[in-house]
């Protein structure tokens, strides 16, 4: 029997009340999400989807900033909602965040030193002031910053790229087990983005896993590993990023992938994207496929039945009736349980 995976999300649903006096359905920002991360060693898992698909809601729940309405998050097999005292402190240390906006996360009244010094003190990473300074210097150098250039300065005196790298230096200092990165590179330049992603790859090689949340599929491809596609709060496809991007199965993933601009000017799009496939209508009902309103392959059953996860090939699954008969053994009931390794 192997150890419990680093992180497991089981049947997680987060609803937000909406509408006037119950006239409209509550918004299901996360709708019965299941995922497992780090079951066999450190890994990078990309969570992709359009805006409003529930990516950030999931990130907030994993970081303990929000609670699921239904379902559980297990860390090393233990329900995160039940962690107290030292165990909670440990979770907060071992699961760290990087956010999108390198401007919004700093308190403008404090020097940037504080975001490095606080975790050293809080998580007791150093035995002395001198050791703390050495560690902070080392962490800054690890992300290609010169300590004398950034320490003692205020956030507004640094560029966006420098600020985002200080957040990485902070992670380097804390050495978490898992990084939840919510669109960390969408506001920095291409050259810096490459460096940031390389650091995440290095972290993985040093045993740090990452849930990488992005709407940019090229960066997800660069990181490799597994990929989960979210659409309107539901997981519609999962599998290795290579398979998902090169042979997308779910009709939604196909629309998504066909819209990635190819960086080759000799391979331009031919024909226009059908309008129906792009604009989302009203929120999906609980008993229909989330993509039914936009799907070019929609069938009658799609509107009256919520598709379960069907195995497409290998460890790839898609929540779509088109794949119902591909491997009849892979039914939702099997998928609800963690797979034997």
């Amino acid at each position, binding site marked *: 029997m192997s150890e419990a995976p680093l992180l497991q999300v089981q049947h997680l649903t987060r609803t937000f009340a909406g509408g006037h006096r119950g006239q409209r359905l509550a918004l299901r920002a996360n709708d019965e999400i299941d995922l497992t991360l780090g079951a066999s060693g450190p890994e990078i898992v990309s969570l992709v989807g359009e805006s409003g698909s529930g990516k950030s809601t999931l990130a907030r729940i994993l970081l303990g900033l929000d609670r699921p309405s239904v379902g559980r998050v297990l860390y090393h097999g233990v329900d995160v909602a039940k962690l107290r005292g030292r165990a909670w402190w440990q979770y907060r240390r071992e699961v760290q965040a990087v956010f999108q906006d390198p401007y919004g996360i700093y308190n403008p009244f404090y020097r940037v030193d504080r975001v490095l010094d606080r975790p050293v003190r809080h998580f007791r990473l150093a035995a002395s002031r001198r050791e703390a300074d050495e560690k902070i210097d080392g962490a800054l150098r690890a992300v290609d910053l010169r300590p004398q250039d950034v320490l003692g300065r205020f956030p507004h005196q640094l560029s966006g790229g420098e600020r985002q790298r200080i957040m990485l230096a902070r992670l380097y200092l804390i050495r978490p087990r898992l990084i939840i990165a919510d669109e960390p590179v969408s506001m920095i330049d291409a050259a810096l983005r490459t460096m940031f992603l390389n650091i995440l790859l290095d972290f993985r090689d040093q045993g740090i896993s990452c849930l990488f949340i992005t709407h940019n599929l090229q960066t997800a491809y660069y990181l490799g590993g597994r990929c989960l596609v979210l659409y309107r709060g539901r997981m519609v496809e999962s599998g290795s990023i290579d398979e998902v991007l090169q042979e997308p199965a779910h009709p939604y993933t196909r629309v998504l992938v066909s819209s990635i601009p*190819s960086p080759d000017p000799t391979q331009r799009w031919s024909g226009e994207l059908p309008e129906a496939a792009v604009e989302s209508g009203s929120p999906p009902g609980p008993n229909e496929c989330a993509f039914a309103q936009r799907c070019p392959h929609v069938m009658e059953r799609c509107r009256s039945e919520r598709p379960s996860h069907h195995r497409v090939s290998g460890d790839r699954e898609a929540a779509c009736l088109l794949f119902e008969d591909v491997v009849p053994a892979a039914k939702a009931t099997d998928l609800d349980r963690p797979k034997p390794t």
Partner: protein
Amino acid sequence: MAAPALVVHGLKVYYHTSRGPFRVVDGVQLELEQDEILGIAGESGCGKSTVVEGILRLVAPPGRIEAGRVLLYGNRAEAVDVLSLAEEAMRRIRWTRLAYVPQGSMNSLNPVLRVREQMLDAMLDHGARSRSECLDRIPILLRAVGLTPSTAEMHPHQLSGGMRQRVVIANSISLNPEVVVADEPTTGLDVHAQRQVLETLLRVRREHRVAMIFVSHDLAVHAQLVDRLVVMYAGQVMEIGPVVPMFRDPRHPYSLGLVASMVRIGGPRRRLFGIPGLAPSPLEWPGGCRFHPRCPYAFDRCREVVPVLQPLEPGRWAACHLYAEGLTDRLAQARREMLAGPAATGARLQEVHAVDQHAAGGEYGE
């Protein structure tokens, strides 16, 4: 050869601050041909948005246009110098001959007005005479950007980001301008909305015969849309050329770095190199070639002498001493090395890691 649609000569835009002038755009020249889409690429802070503001004379204090000429030919034989026009004459040109799709413009619509009212306002304000003619034109414009005429009755919050962006594009072509300048019109949109906006721009160019300047930091977007590409760095143009050969064979070491940093889905998975170092500050550009501190192939001359844009072959220009000195074999080497992509950061991280032993549970804390 037909006259170009727009010519920019020696444009300089400085921001005057207490710390001195920020030379954000420092001598830019480019030519926009008839019916073409010209892309401007570069990292943030390279001045690409400011070039656009300069062309449209929208630079606000403490920024000031210091020098240069912006000659608008449009589809006429005679040019007007946009920068020397009186304010009222400039107003008459904006929208009717030279239109603008600003950055983040999908959020520029007025939330309390219907799309129809906003489109009408823009047209009447920029010299359209007949209200009823404008109203007749709105459905045509909306169709031109792939929206249904009923969109006119909607409020902005009822539209997705991509739809709002297309409303702004419909607005920009409402008075049949000859040149449209779009600044990062797809940034912040989801990929499929981005694809639709790009397709809309292509359709507008095809059906309305406008010339466009398109600014984006995303090279893949340029690959899908533009005919020719301008690569800017540190307030200056580094390279200009047709998009296909520029992607296949970038000539300036900076363009090479940009092209080599792109991720190709389905391509071999290898560590990319990026461009080492940081972009310099507009307060104090490096002397000589502004790229030299980050350029792996810089030699003495690059530190001392400012390279000028020079023709390499028909249609292709680059500002790099390697060509003047006939050191093109160095660039061939650069191409090979950059595309091979050593894991520079990784090696350094391992190094630091080896020195830094991670002490858990120290005494220094709260």
